[in-house]
């Protein structure tokens, strides 16, 4: 029976046979990450699938805006060996596109649609990747990109309540009692229901 350390060793050997690993990270005893080239991802995933990592746990992306790159992350899971594998690959941030892994993991269909919706990554090979999934009728740049400003979007789209009186007490000696009385009076005036 294999323990988890030899699982990791076995994996390293397997992955290095298939493709060139650009960066390796041993996150914990049960979790390893390989950063590979964009073109090697499909080969690597299908090999791992045939070796037991048959469940795609997650697919998402990370926006590295300073390096002008997106990082697509695939997490695969094995029901027999206690090691989760992250496959990471960097893609260009201008016109980001990553070939779909639909032939390997059919369940990736919705993850890819989500990644397209939130990051704007195109997944050629997935027939539905452009359809809306979570955001309904989105009308701006994809919201999880780092250059998207949620606060500005909120200001533009949703009306804000404006408060005519500022009740915040900024300095200690500026008539707190007066402000408190004023607040109390306003609260009484706003109260609904039975008025005594």
């Amino acid at each position, binding site marked *: 029976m294999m323990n988890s350390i030899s699982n990791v060793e076995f994996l390293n050997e397997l992955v290095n046979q298939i493709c060139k690993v650009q960066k390796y990270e041993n996150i914990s005893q049960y979790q390893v990450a390989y950063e590979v080239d964009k073109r090697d991802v499909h080969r690597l995933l299908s090999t791992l699938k045939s070796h037991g990592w048959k469940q795609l746990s997650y697919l998402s992306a990370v926006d590295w805006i300073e390096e002008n790159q997106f990082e697509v992350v695939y997490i695969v899971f094995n029901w027999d060996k206690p090691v989760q594998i992250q496959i990471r690959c960097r893609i260009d941030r201008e016109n980001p596109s990553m070939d779909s892994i639909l032939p390997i993991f059919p369940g990736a269909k919705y993850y890819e649609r989500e990644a397209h919706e939130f990051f704007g990554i195109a997944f050629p090979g997935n027939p539905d990747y452009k*359809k*809306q999934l*979570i*955001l*309904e*009728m989105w*009308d*701006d740049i994809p*919201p999880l990109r780092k250059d*998207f400003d*949620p*606060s500005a*979007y*909120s*200001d533009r*789209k*949703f*009306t*804000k*309540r404006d408060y005519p009186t500022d009740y915040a007490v900024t300095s200690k000696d500026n008539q707190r009692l007066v402000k408190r009385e004023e607040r109390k009076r306003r609260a009484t005036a706003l*109260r*609904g*229901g*039975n008025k005594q």
Partner: protein
Amino acid sequence: MKSTKFTPYTKLSKTETDRKWWEIGDFFRRNSLWLLMYCTGCCAIELPPAMTSAYDMERLGMGPMATPRQADILLVSGYLSLKTLRRLVYTYEQMSEPKYVVALGSCPINGGIYHDSFAVINQLNQYIPVDVYVAGCMPNTEAVMNGFVDLIGLIKSKKANGWKEYHKNNDWFKENQITALGKVVIDDEFHQ
């Protein structure tokens, strides 16, 4: 001497009769309110103590109801994302009149901690009329109960007129809904 025991019968006008019937209706309505709990956010956690033996909503004659068409109160508990707002508008329009809206928490008032989120609306009363707000993040259960008592008082004093406002200013509400949602009724693969 003329007896003062009985007041002489006078025929009431139609508006007067309607007012009396509304008063009778409101009396029974405010003593048996059915809640449609649209538990959108974290304020929903205040409802179990309000419903069960700790505060016992039933003594005010309030109870949970499963369907919008049979409910009197739409209880919005917490933040509303755009997707939820769309469903809330569907639900509100399905409810039979008179209908009241109670909003819990600070998120329907001014956005609360989600005031700068791209997905969460800031003011609920821009989209549907709200009768009672219960402030707090989250409100105490006592505050929630007090909000319900306030609503009962508002119905008694004929001030819970949100549903009339929705008829009167329908164009304004619809315009706000469309500004935020783009389109209220949506059709994609999940809505067929």
